């Protein structure tokens, strides 16, 4: 591909990393895997550091952890599930911080790769969420009432159930997890492509014409700030949709 007659790396070169550890084994490790391990350690380390020495006046990691927990509790759980959703607080908080940390590597210098722009982990997370909201629904309402409430929502004219039931079945079995995974993945792919495009433009123009390189470079800085916002927003949206699905399974419509 070329953009304005500049050599632009093909899309696959931007997202596929060679294995560098344990090559040719099932546990081969590449940059994406390494970022996920770092995100996992960061999430675990943050809460370990926060809970190690609990102070009345929080400092350091404890501030971040408490702000995160309070945010998930007040603006995600209370708004979507209600007070009885507090038991899902640990899961949702972990989900939020893990997704955020694996996204934010998009703008960390010298790493600059959003790990969630590979489909594996978004899809795995979506499947975990899929399993959880089905189990929660079946445990809270029973198998029959859960699927009856989901497939035949009350307040719909009887004749329309012929149309509504298959759509709702497709929705809870296929569309919800797929859209959850695709939303996170495609946002990260788009963000990475944007940053790469403007980085390539500024680098190429910097070598030949110095003055016009200011424009793409300014755009690059603005987009970097925007991508920090997008990383947090996507983590928030992933978590809030999980909460909405759990809330929907927990409380049937009347």
């Amino acid at each position, binding site marked *: *591909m070329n953009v304005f007659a500049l050599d632009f790396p093909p*899309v696959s070169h931007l997202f596929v990393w060679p294995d560098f550890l344990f090559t040719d084994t099932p546990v081969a490790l590449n940059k994406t895997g390494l970022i996920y391990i770092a995100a996992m350690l960061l999430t675990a380390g943050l809460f370990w550091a926060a809970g190690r020495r609990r102070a009345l006046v929080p400092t350091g990691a404890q501030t971040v952890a408490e702000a995160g927990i309070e945010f998930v509790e007040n*603006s*995600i759980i209370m*708004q*979507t599930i209600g007070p009885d959703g507090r038991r899902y607080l640990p899961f949702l908080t972990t989900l939020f911080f893990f997704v955020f940390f694996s996204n934010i590597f998009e703008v960390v210098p010298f790493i600059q790769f959003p790990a969630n722009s590979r489909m594996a982990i978004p899809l795995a997370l979506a499947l975990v969420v899929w399993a959880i909201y089905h189990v929660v629904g079946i445990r809270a309402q029973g198998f029959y009432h859960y699927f009856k409430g989901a497939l035949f929502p009350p307040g719909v004219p009887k004749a329309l159930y012929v149309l509504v039931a298959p759509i709702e079945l497709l929705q809870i079995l296929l569309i919800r997890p797929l*859209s959850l995974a*695709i*939303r996170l993945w*495609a*946002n990260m*792919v*788009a963000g990475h492509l944007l940053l790469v495009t403007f980085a390539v433009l500024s680098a190429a123009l910097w070598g030949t014409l110095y003055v016009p390189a200011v424009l793409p470079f300014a755009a690059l800085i603005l987009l970097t700030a925007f991508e920090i916002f997008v990383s947090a*927003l996507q983590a*928030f*949206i992933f978590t*809030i*949709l999980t909460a*909405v699905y759990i809330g929907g399974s927990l409380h049937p419509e009347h």
Partner: protein
Amino acid sequence: MLALISLLAQLTGDGEAGLSAIGAGLGYGLAAIGPGVGIGIVVGNAITAMARQPESAGVARTTMFLGIAFTEALALIGFVVFILLLP
């Protein structure tokens, strides 16, 4: 219009690849129209709600993000198709 598209495709040298690149670009553009209008409606109405009742801004903001997320999914599927169609 079609003649123009095939002319553009030939200009790239490789007719097939050029056509599929144009198709990908057009496909993404078409897929972005609906969600663009939809997100505009969602955010506009959320702002109206927040301006009328600032005390319920929290609920409105959460619901707004939910609405954006559902609407945006369509545009993102268009974007995925765009990547798949690229030569």
